[in-house]
């Protein structure tokens, strides 16, 4: 059963990723990205990370993707005739070869390491949100605060960038 779900989520997310990169109209690309994000969130459920699933759906799909769609529709882009870069054929073959090499390395490597202190049974017992919250607000409190400062800076920066400069408007009137 787990194998069926994993193959479904994996296949659909790969197909959606390829469509995001290859489709012509930007809005279609954004919708393919939506499918990708939702199926990746399904993978998070399979990995006992239901809090991350909720964050993925709310923040990624609900906020970031809506922001992308909003800007796409605000700008009303016309699709170019030639929407790929001119040097695409030279990049495709190295990309495919590199991916296959990476896959062979990944599948063959043992991928083991030091075990942590929160086994899957504990997460199933307490709930993922509880486990993440305890860890986040004890051991990872400083990175959490830094992320808060970073987000504030990003918001201020976005507002400053997108504001219409006043000096230019004065010049336009004269």
């Amino acid at each position, binding site marked *: 059963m787990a194998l069926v779900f*994993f193959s479904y989520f994996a296949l659909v997310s790969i197909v959606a990723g390829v469509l995001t990169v290859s489709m012509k109209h930007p809005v279609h690309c954004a919708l393919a990205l939506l499918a990708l994000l939702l199926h990746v969130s399904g993978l998070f459920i*399979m990995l006992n990370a239901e809090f991350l699933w909720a964050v993925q759906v709310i923040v990624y799909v609900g906020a970031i993707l809506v922001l992308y769609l909003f800007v796409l529709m605000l*700008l009303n882009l016309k699709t170019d005739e030639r929407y790929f870069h001119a040097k*695409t054929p030279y990049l495709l073959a190295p990309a495919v070869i590199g991916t296959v090499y990476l896959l062979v390395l990944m*599948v063959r490597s043992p991928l083991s390491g030091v075990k*942590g202190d929160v*086994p899957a049974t504990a997460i199933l017992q307490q709930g993922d949100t509880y*486990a993440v919250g305890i860890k*986040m607000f004890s051991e990872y409190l400083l990175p959490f605060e830094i992320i808060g400062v970073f987000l504030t800076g990003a918001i201020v920066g976005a*507002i400053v960038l997108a504001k219409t400069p006043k000096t230019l408007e004065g010049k336009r009137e004269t």
Partner: protein
Amino acid sequence: MIPLSAYVALSAVLFATGLLGVLIRRNFIIVLMAVEIMLNAANINLVAFSYHLDSIAGQIVALFIIAIAAGEAAIGLAIIIVVFRGKISTNVDEMNLLKW
């Protein structure tokens, strides 16, 4: 039980797709979307390792990555709007304002 290498292989394929998208697309907004694909591939990797190595740290780092992605999307789209206002183009080949 899905082996860890399956998740790692999936995230490698997704990362390569995103990298290819950054390299070959000419629309700046779609380049940013390809960056989101790459960040998601990293997230899959982190959460899969956190599950298989019995540690919650991977999930916390994945949360931080989602926050960084939100900031990156806000700044990137603001830059697109500024450039679009001046040049009426989102083509990455024609963006050379900072070129000396």
